[in-house]
C-alpha cells in the first residue's frame, strides 16, 4: 500500500534533506527521460538527418504534414490499433479465466503459478524466434499438429501471408503477456472481501450467480487497470513485430514505422514526428489511467499526504 507515512517528529526534522536524497535520481531521470523527450519533440519540427543532427533547421509542421499524407503511416496506425484491441481483449479474458483457476485452493497451485510465469520471463526476441520456428511453413510444429487434427488441409505460411501474419503476432503476444494479466487479476481476486461470498453461501446462491453478482462488479477496477496496463504496452510494441514479421507492411506498427524512418531512411524529422504522435496517443491513455488511480486512491484517502 502506498499510503502516507504517519507524520512524526523525526520525519519532520528530516524534511530538509529529502530533496538531497532525491536529487541524484531526479537528475538521472532528467537526463534519460525529460531531455531526450524534448529533443525528440524539437527534431520533429526540423529537417534533421541521421548524419548531421547539428545542421537541423526549423521547418514548422512540414514533417507532420508529410506523415499525415503517408498511407503507410495510416496503415501502421490501423495495425497498432487492431493489434492492441484484439490482443488486450484476449489477454484480459484468458488472464481472468486463469486467475480464477489459480484463486482456488488445490494441491500444486504453487508450481502451476510458477509455470504460468515462464512466458513472462522469456525475452520477447526469444519468444518471437521460438514461435517463428513453431509457425514455420514447412517444418513448423503448428502446421504439423493442425494437419494431423484435420483442421487445415495444407501447410499454412503463418508469418508470411498478409492475412495471417497479424493473427500470428497476436497469438505470440497473448502467450507472452497473459501471465502479467494473470498476476494483476489474481492480486485483485485475493483482495475481495470474503464475507460477501459467505453471505451468498447462506442464501444458497449458485456459483454462476456469485460470479456475476459479486466477483465481476468488484473486479471491474482491477480489470480496467490490467487492460490499460496491457494496452499501453501493446501500443508501443516493437521487438515482437520486428523479429517475427520484419518490416512487412501488413503488420508494421507505429513504433516500427518510426524507427524505420529514423534509422533505415535516416530521416530524423519525420521519424521524430512519428515518435511524437505515438507519444501523444500513449500520454492520453496514461492520463486517463492516472486519473482513474487518483480517483480510486482518494476514495481510500491514501494519497492525502
Amino acid at each position, binding site marked *: 500500500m502506498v499510503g502516507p507515512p504517519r507524520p512524526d517528529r523525526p520525519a519532520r526534522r528530516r524534511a530538509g534533506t529529502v530533496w538531497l536524497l532525491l536529487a541524484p535520481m531526479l537528475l538521472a531521470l532528467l537526463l534519460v527521460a525529460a*531531455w531526450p523527450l524534448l529533443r525528440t519533440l524539437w527534431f520533429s519540427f526540423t529537417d534533421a538527418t541521421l548524419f548531421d543532427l547539428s545542421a537541423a533547421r526549423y521547418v514548422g509542421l512540414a514533417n507532420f504534414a508529410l506523415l499525415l499524407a503517408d498511407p503507410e503511416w495510416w496503415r501502421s496506425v490501423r495495425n497498432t490499433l487492431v493489434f492492441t484491441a484484439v490482443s488486450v481483449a484476449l489477454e484480459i479474458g484468458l488472464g481472468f479465466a486463469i486467475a480464477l483457476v489459480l484463486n482456488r485452493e488445490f494441491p500444486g497451485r504453487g508450481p502451476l503459478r510458477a509455470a504460468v510465469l515462464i512466458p513472462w520471463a522469456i525475452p520477447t526476441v526469444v519468444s518471437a524466434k521460438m514461435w517463428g520456428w513453431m509457425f514455420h511453413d514447412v517444418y513448423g510444429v503448428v502446421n504439423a499438429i493442425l494437419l494431423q487434427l484435420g483442421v487445415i488441409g495444407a501447410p499454412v505460411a503463418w508469418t508470411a501471408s498478409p492475412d495471417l501474419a497479424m493473427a500470428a503476432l497476436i497469438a505470440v503476444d497473448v502467450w507472452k503477456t497473459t501471465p502479467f494479466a494473470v498476476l494483476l487479476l489474481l492480486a485483485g481476486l485475493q483482495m475481495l472481501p470474503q464475507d460477501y461470498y459467505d453471505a451468498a453461501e447462506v442464501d444458497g446462491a449458485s456459483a454462476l450467480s456469485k460470479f456475476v453478482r459479486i466477483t465481476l462488479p468488484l473486479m471491474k477496477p482491477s480489470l480496467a487497470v490490467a487492460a490499460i496496463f496491457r494496452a499501453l504496452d501493446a501500443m508501443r510494441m516493437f521487438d515482437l513485430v520486428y523479429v517475427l514479421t520484419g518490416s512487412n507492411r501488413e503488420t508494421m506498427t507505429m513504433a516500427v514505422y518510426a524507427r524505420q524512418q529514423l534509422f533505415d531512411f535516416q530521416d530524423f524529422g519525420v521519424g521524430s514526428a512519428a515518435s511524437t504522435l505515438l507519444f501523444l496517443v500513449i500520454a492520453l491513455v496514461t492520463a486517463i489511467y492516472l486519473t482513474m488511480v487518483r480517483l480510486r486512491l482518494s476514495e481510500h484517502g491514501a494519497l492525502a499526504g
Partner: protein
Amino acid sequence: MLPRAIRCGAFLLIVAAIVLYAVFPFYWAVVSSLRTGQALFSTSLLPRDFQLDNYIAVFAEQPFGRNILNSLMVAGLTVGLSLILAVPASYALGRVTFRGRGALLFAFLGVSMFPQVAVLSGMFEIIQSLGLYNRLLGLALSYLLITLPLTVWVLTAFMRELPREIEEAAVVDGASPLILIWRVLLPLMAPALVATGLLAFIAAWNEFLFALTFTLSSETRTVPVAIALISGATGYELPWGNVMAASVTVTLPLVVLVLIFQRRIVAGLTAGAVKG
C-alpha cells in the same frame, strides 16, 4: 450439480491445458535445439537421441559468449546504478512526508509508461555526443529510463512496510539519513532489494530496441540483438537449430531464477500496479 468426480476431472483437465499452453513453446525450443541434421525437421513431439551440435555451433560461428558477457555487464551495471539512485530516493518517498510527494510518485508512474521509441532520436543524440555509441556504458545509461521508475516505485512500496520503531531509535541516537539507510534499513530491505534488482535485471537483459539502435558491431551486441540477427550461411534459410540453442541458453537461467524467486517477483510486479 455434476458428480464430484467429473467436476474434479474437468478441473484437472483445465489445469493441464494451462500448463501445456504455458510450457509447450519452451519445451519445443529445447527439443529442437537438441536435434541436428534431418532430425531437426521432424515434428515428432517426443525427444530422441540428443545432440549438442547446435550449442557448439552457436558459440563457434559468432561471438555468442561475448554477447552473453555483454548482456551480463549491461544488466549488472543497470541494476547497480538503479539501486544506488533509487534506495535514497525511495527512502525519502516512502518514509518522509513532504510537499510534492504524491505528484512525484505520479510522475514516475507516468515515466514508466513512456514508449521507448518516443525518446529514441533524443537518446541517440545524447549517446552520440557523450561518445557512448556502440559502447556498453551507453546502453546501461539508456536503460535507466526503463528501470529507474520501476525500482523507485517498487522500493517505495516496500519501504512503507518496514516497522518504524527501529528507525526512530536510530534517529534518537543522532544517525544521519544515509547512515540510517545503510546500517538499519538496508539489511531489513534485503528481500525487497533482491526482488527489485531481479525485475530490473530481467528488464535490462531482455531489452531490444535501444540495444539494436545504439550498438553496431557484433562484439558489442547484447544477447537479444545477437539472436535476432543470427543469419544462415546462404541467407536463404535461418539455421533454426542454432537459433533455438541460443534461445535456450539465455532463457534457461531466467526460467530457473523465476522459479526460485517466484513469490518475490510477484510481490514486486503487483506492488506498483494493483496497490497503486
